[in-house]
């Protein structure tokens, strides 16, 4: 889609110090598992204690990030709330399923059931901001955030909204980490984020986080210029698609001042990045972001947050984000100033 979709404000809760506004990338030191957990802020600054007590971690994370983003954007009530999540509220889902088993389908608590739905974060944001406008949550594994972005851009393009709150949220639970480790998603040996890209082994480090953006057609310092998604492409198809994508935006590879990649040290899938860099960006600075936040379905939202941070700190004119999720969902996001 063509057009300019300006980013008015951002907020992120991640394994980095991203929420406080004093972000300096730091590689964490893992103790026992290949898992990066978010650094949680004091939620009481944003959510009333009586509401807070009932919320699971991902709900607190999602709602707080959204409210902070609106605050940073000077927007009280958005015209649309559009999010993406790969797994939604995992903790509540697991709690509910455990209870079904333990209490043999009797005496079930309503709260984890209510909150286990994917759109519960959106519902909470809407209630808190009294926003009765368009509200949508996309659940498409590694494409979840990209679809939320695409929908946001369409809403703005059609003039249906002036300010869209777009975002993504994801949590990792102990059980889900274990399930994914059984199918080889995470590295078998304890691997530090500093070593993950050079480990030469299958799997990666798990992560989680939430990031929100207020998008608008009113000019600001950073805009989203383009978005492209590819499902299960071959390496050749990725290369061709990138060439076409750059041409559509009248750009040469040399115009990209920073390439942010989702390279995660998984030898099964990192070749996509290596090939693309060799072909298009041999001289372009690359910033692999998953050392900072780990791998999860909507990690590309953290990449977008990081890109905006870099551009606002005097970064280049054009930034390209290329991310793929275990070889299946690939996306390009182009940012301009």
């Amino acid at each position: 889609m063509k057009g300019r979709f300006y980013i008015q404000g951002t907020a992120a809760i991640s394994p980095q110090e991203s929420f406080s506004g004093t972000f300096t990338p730091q590689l964490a030191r893992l103790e026992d598992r290949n898992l990066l957990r978010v650094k949680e802020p004091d939620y009481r600054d944003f959510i009333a204690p009586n509401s807070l007590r009932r919320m699971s971690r991902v709900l607190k994370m999602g709602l707080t990030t959204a409210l902070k983003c609106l605050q940073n954007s000077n927007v009280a009530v958005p015209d649309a709330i559009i999010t993406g999540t790969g797994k939604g509220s995992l903790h509540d889902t697991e709690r509910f399923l455990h209870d079904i088993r333990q209490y043999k389908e009797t005496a079930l608590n309503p709260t984890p059931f209510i909150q286990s739905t994917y759109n519960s974060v959106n519902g909470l944001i809407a209630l808190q901001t009294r926003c009765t406008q368009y509200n949508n949550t996309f659940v498409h594994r590694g494409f979840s955030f990209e679809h939320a972005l695409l929908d946001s851009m369409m809403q703005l393009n059609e003039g249906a909204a002036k300010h869209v709150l777009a975002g993504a949220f994801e949590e990792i639970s102990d059980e889900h980490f274990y399930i994914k480790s059984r199918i080889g998603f995470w590295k078998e040996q304890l691997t530090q984020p500093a070593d993950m890209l050079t480990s030469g082994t299958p799997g990666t480090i798990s992560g989680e986080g939430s990031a929100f953006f207020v998008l608008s057609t009113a000019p600001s310092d950073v805009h989203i210029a383009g978005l492209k998604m590819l499902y299960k492409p071959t390496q050749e198809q990725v290369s061709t698609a990138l060439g076409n994508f750059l041409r559509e935006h009248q750009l040469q590879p040399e115009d990209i001042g920073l390439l942010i990649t989702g390279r995660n040290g998984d030898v099964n899938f990192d070749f996509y990045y290596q090939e693309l860099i060799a072909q298009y960006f041999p001289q372009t600075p690359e910033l692999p972001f998953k050392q900072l936040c780990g791998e999860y379905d909507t990690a590309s939202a953290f990449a977008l947050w990081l890109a905006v941070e870099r551009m606002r700190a005097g970064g280049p004119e054009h930034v390209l984000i290329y991310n793929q999720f275990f070889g299946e969902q690939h996306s390009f996001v182009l940012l301009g100033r």
Partner: protein
Amino acid sequence: MRRGPITRKRLTYNIMEALKLKLKQQIIEALNLQDTKPEDIDDNAPLFGEGLGLDSIDSLELMVLLERNYQIKVEDPREGRKILQSVQTMAEFIQSKQPA
């Protein structure tokens, strides 16, 4: 200090006090009432609206609490409204359902 013999009345009183304390602890845990201690909850204070300020979802959680911990199922919502007035009414209801 010397105490008199344990009478039936005092025994019933002690059982009731222990039940209310346990119930308060269970309510705090089930509803995740952070920063609330059992001694902060008055036996006769209303659980909903004023007092603890609980809401309709909490009332469902309390029904589940009774079912899980005391094997008491409250079928009639009107009955539930009376039972869940306070810790005192809940404890009295639980005690009335205990086998003699």
